[in-house]
């Protein structure tokens, strides 16, 4: 393998890891506060469609990213209302968000664009001065899309907030023992709302990233299960943002290798093997989950609604 090939595989790894990292760290915050949001995939799909629509109509990519975040916020509010205020079964409520986002994004796309081929001008990769000149690594990590640079900053910041800030302490307390946190004057409802809505907004952003930077088009189910993979990677990372981040890179790498083999298979005239290779990333996630299962311990209050009045 030439250095250029290694560099391009690593570059694609980072690109594929970015939406997963946004959705994953958002889900991690929600779960740390005790809310299991299984609707990530639906929120990503809605974020992807909305950002596609805005980019297609206005040509302004910044607006497109923001539209994805806004849709995520709205669906996050719905999820928080159902799971925190109404105290519904979170698995069932999250699946509801998934179905809703899956159906609505596809219906709106087909209604607006029909069968015509619609595409947007994708965001461009930007080279960082100096850093991009480093051999292999420079091209892989520092000639990247805007959201990748945001990820480089956001994940460490989210880690810091979770473990070193007062708010992060409250968040973790609410997820472990809401009654004790409540007794100490922490507003359980508010924190769960904030964490769920923040997480969903990041999932919306992840959807926008998929559309605006990776595909440039919208199609049914374009998330390829990434929302659920993000939930799996939170488990793989044992609810720690940095370990979860490593998991997104692992998935990104397996995906990137599978896609890089595409050229090879088309050269030898056996294109169908590409699909065989695309099974591998999902199997990698499964094996990763099995590998950490003995050590993983979920937040104690995860997916348990909190009632102040009764002692359950």
């Amino acid at each position, binding site marked *: 393998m030439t250095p250029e090939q290694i560099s391009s595989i690593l570059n694609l790894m980072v690109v594929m890891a970015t939406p997963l990292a946004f959705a994953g760290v958002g889900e991690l915050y929600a779960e740390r506060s005790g809310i299991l949001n299984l609707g990530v995939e639906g929120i990503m799909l809605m974020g992807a469609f909305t950002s596609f629509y805005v980019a297609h109509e206005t040509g302004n990519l910044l607006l497109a990213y923001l539209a994805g975040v806004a849709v995520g916020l709205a669906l996050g509010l719905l999820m928080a209302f159902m799971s925190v205020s109404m105290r519904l079964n979170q698995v069932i409520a999250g699946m509801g968000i998934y179905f809703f986002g899956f159906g609505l994004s596809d219906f709106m796309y087909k209604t607006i664009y029909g069968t015509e081929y619609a595409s947007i001008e994708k965001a461009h990769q930007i080279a960082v001065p100096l850093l991009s000149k480093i051999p292999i690594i420079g091209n892989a990590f520092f000639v990247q899309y805007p959201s990748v640079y945001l990820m480089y900053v956001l994940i460490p910041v989210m880690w810091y907030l979770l473990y070193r800030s007062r708010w992060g302490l409250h968040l973790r307390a609410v997820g472990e023992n809401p009654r004790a946190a409540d007794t100490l004057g922490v507003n359980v409802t508010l924190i769960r709302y904030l964490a769920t809505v923040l997480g969903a907004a990041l999932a919306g952003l992840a959807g926008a990233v998929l559309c605006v930077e990776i595909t440039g088009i919208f199609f049914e189910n374009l998330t390829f299960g990434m929302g659920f993979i993000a939930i799996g990677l939170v488990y793989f990372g044992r609810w720690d943002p940095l370990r979860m981040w490593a998991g997104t890179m692992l998935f990104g790498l397996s995906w990137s290798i599978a896609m890089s083999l595409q050229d090879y298979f088309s050269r030898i005239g056996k294109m169908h093997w590409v*699909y065989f290779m695309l*099974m591998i990333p999902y199997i990698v*996630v499964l094996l990763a989950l099995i590998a950490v299962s003995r050590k993983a311990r979920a937040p104690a209050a995860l997916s348990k609604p909190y009632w102040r009045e009764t002692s359950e």
Partner: protein
Amino acid sequence: MGVRIRLERRGEVPLYVYILAPTGAFLLAFLMGAFLMLWAGASPIKGYGAFLRGAFGGLKPFTNTLLRATPFLLMATGISLSNRSNVLNIGAEGQYIMGAIAMTWIAVLMQNSVPGFIVILVGVILAVIVGALWAGAAGYLKAKMGINEVVVTVMLNWVAIMLLKWLLRGPLKDPRSQQWPMSPPIGPHLPYIYGNLNLGFVIAVLLAIAIWYVLFRTNIGFKLRACGENPRAARYAGFNVEGMLILSMLISGAMAGMAGAFDVIGTFHILYEGIVVGLGYTSIIVALVGKNHPLAVIGSAIMFGAIYNGVTSMQSVTQLSYTLSKCIEGMIYLFFLISEFLVLYRIRLIRGDAS
């Protein structure tokens, strides 16, 4: 001080509320569907008119509705069973695909040398086994290692989808079809009852009744429900909670695998990528609406069959995308949840700081 919102559990709930609340949820979802149609520039009256004619307007449309209901009924019955032991099978989609693949593979291999009914028998049995293993793996990982079954089953769905795409372009490809990835046509088919409706529907109804009987009238069914409702107490009673969980997933997957096989030999007579339209996901909603009760699931499956069948004929009249059915079912799901909540709780506004 302001106003606080307080939830109170209702005491006795009159029976009619249990009927009115879900009906309201359905009506609300269809009302929202009407707004979506208006937004898309179609007339809701014309649209729903075509919908009703397509779903119930006569014997032929109605048998089509029952045909559409068959995979929902099989998968939702299985999902209800696994829900009862407190494990959520999101993977019916993948198990359905694996069942369809198994059936097609057997048919392609044997249909030129063996009588049709043997092909069907062997194919369906293999589909049931493959489906059961596909779901059982997730059940095993949940029971023995505590890995979230939702994530595992969704990953397995995608593995199944990629496997299907690979097979249709490689080993199972029809050599005569140059462009579209599809299998050779499959000759053996299930016996027809009326029009397109085949024996599959009858088998699905019988299986739903059988599973209802097992769940509510036998010892093993009681154990399965006990393990789901209160695993701790069940463990004290000496029940094998993990075993029940795996067993319920095995059965759930077997039903989905059978649904895939039945669709190949009863409806499509060919294997192509178009079978992946999310029927497995819809079946989760069918099970929810049927309240995880196999007999109620029969009614709910027919209702969703009607929605799918109706939306198809709506599509030909109004040019709306068939994915409208996906929106409507998503809304049915959400409104259904909210109605359940309103049945169980009363919302009260309390003035001042009364805590």
